[in-house]
C-alpha cells in the first residue's frame, strides 16, 4: 500500500518534468521546421510544419482534459499560421492585403481555439482592465517600432502614406496581426502554460513560440529585437493580466516599422 502510494507520488512528481521536456521538444520541432523552410525551401518547410501540426493536434486530442493538453492544442496555431502564410499570399498587390488574408483566416483558427479550449474572454483580460495601465503598455510600442526599423530597415507594406493606406494598415495590424498573435501566443498559449508550468515558464514559452517563427527573418539583429519585444509583451500580459495593451503596443510597433518610418525616414 505504502509502496503503491509512494510510486504514484513519484509518478506525479515526475510528470511536470516529462511534460516540460515534451513542450521543449515541440518548441525545438517548431524551430527545426522554420529552419527547414529557410534552408531547404518552402516545400520541405511546409511538410515539416504540417507534420508538427498533425503531431501536436493528435497528441493534444489523446490527452485527458487538463491545462497541459490545452496548451499543446493552442500551440497547434503556430504551424497552422505558418502554413497559411506560405499558401495564401497574393502577388502583385501591396503586402498589406496578403497580411489581411493570412491574418483573417488565422483569426478563424484563434476563435475556434478559444471555443475548443473553453477560454472566457475575461481570462484573456478583455472584460475588466485598467485603461491607464494598458494605454502606457500600448504606447511603448511606438519607440519599439522605431528601434526595430532603425536596426533592420524592413520595407513598407503599403505604397504611400495617405489617409486610406494609414487607416487600412492600422486596422490590419491591430486585428489581423497584433490581434491574432496576441490572442494566440500571449492569450491562449501563455494562459495555458501559466496554469501548468507557472509564470516564468509561461513567459518563456509565449516569447519563444513567436520568436522561433521569426527565424526566417534571417537578420540576427531583427530576430534579437523582435524576441525582446515578444518578451516584453509576454511580461506585460502576465503583469497586467490583460492582452489589450500588448495588442496595442504590437500594432503600434508594426505600424511604425512597416508604414510610418519606412515612408517618412526611409
Amino acid at each position, binding site marked *: 500500500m505504502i509502496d503503491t502510494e509512494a510510486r504514484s507520488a513519484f509518478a506525479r512528481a515526475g510528470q511536470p518534468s516529462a511534460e516540460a521536456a515534451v513542450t521543449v521538444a515541440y518548441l525545438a520541432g517548431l524551430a527545426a521546421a522554420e529552419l527547414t*523552410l*529557410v534552408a531547404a525551401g*518552402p*516545400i520541405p518547410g*511546409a*511538410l515539416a510544419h*504540417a507534420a508538427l*501540426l*498533425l503531431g501536436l*493536434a*493528435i497528441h*493534444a*486530442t489523446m490527452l485527458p482534459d487538463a491545462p497541459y*493538453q*490545452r496548451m*499543446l492544442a*493552442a500551440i*497547434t*496555431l503556430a504551424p*497552422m*499560421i*505558418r*502554413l*497559411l*502564410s*506560405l*499558401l*495564401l*499570399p*497574393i*502577388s502583385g498587390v501591396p*503586402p498589406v492585403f*496578403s*497580411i489581411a*488574408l*493570412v*491574418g483573417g*483566416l*488565422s483569426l*478563424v*483558427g484563434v476563435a*475556434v481555439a478559444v471555443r*475548443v479550449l473553453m477560454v472566457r474572454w475575461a481570462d484573456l483580460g478583455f472584460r475588466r482592465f485598467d485603461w491607464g495601465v494598458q494605454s502606457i503598455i500600448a504606447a511603448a510600442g511606438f519607440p519599439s517600432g522605431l528601434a*526595430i526599423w532603425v536596426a*533592420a530597415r*524592413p520595407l513598407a507594406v503599403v505604397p504611400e502614406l495617405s489617409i486610406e493606406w494609414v487607416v487600412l494598415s492600422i486596422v490590419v495590424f491591430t486585428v489581423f*496581426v497584433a490581434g491574432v*498573435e496576441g490572442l494566440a*501566443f500571449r492569450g491562449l498559449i501563455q494562459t495555458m502554460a501559466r496554469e501548468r508550468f507557472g509564470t516564468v515558464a509561461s513567459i518563456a514559452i509565449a516569447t519563444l513560440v*513567436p520568436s522561433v*517563427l*521569426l527565424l*526566417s*527573418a*534571417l537578420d540576427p539583429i*531583427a530576430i534579437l529585437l*523582435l524576441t525582446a519585444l515578444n518578451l516584453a509583451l509576454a511580461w506585460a500580459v502576465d503583469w497586467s493580466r490583460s492582452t489589450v495593451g500588448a495588442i496595442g503596443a504590437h500594432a503600434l510597433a*508594426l505600424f511604425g*516599422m*512597416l508604414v510610418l518610418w519606412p515612408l517618412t525616414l526611409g
Partner: protein
Amino acid sequence: MTVVFPEFAQQYAASFTYDFRTTTVGVIAVILLVVLLIVRELVTAWRLPSGVLKLEPIDIAIPPLLLTFGVVVLGRLADLL
C-alpha cells in the same frame, strides 16, 4: 517582420506563381486537412456515442484549412473564367 506574414513568405510569393504554390504547399495543406478530418472521425467514433458532437483540440486547425481550401479553389476558378 511579422509571424503572420514574414519576409520569407513575401519573397516566396514574389518568386513563385500562385499555380506553383497551390500545387505544392496547397497539396500538402489539403492532405493535412484530409488526415485531420479522418482522425477527427476516428476520435469521435472511439469516444462518443453516435450523433454526439464534441469539440476536440484537433478541430482547431480544420476550419482555417477548409476556408483556405475554399480560397484556393475560388482563386483557381477565377483564373479559369
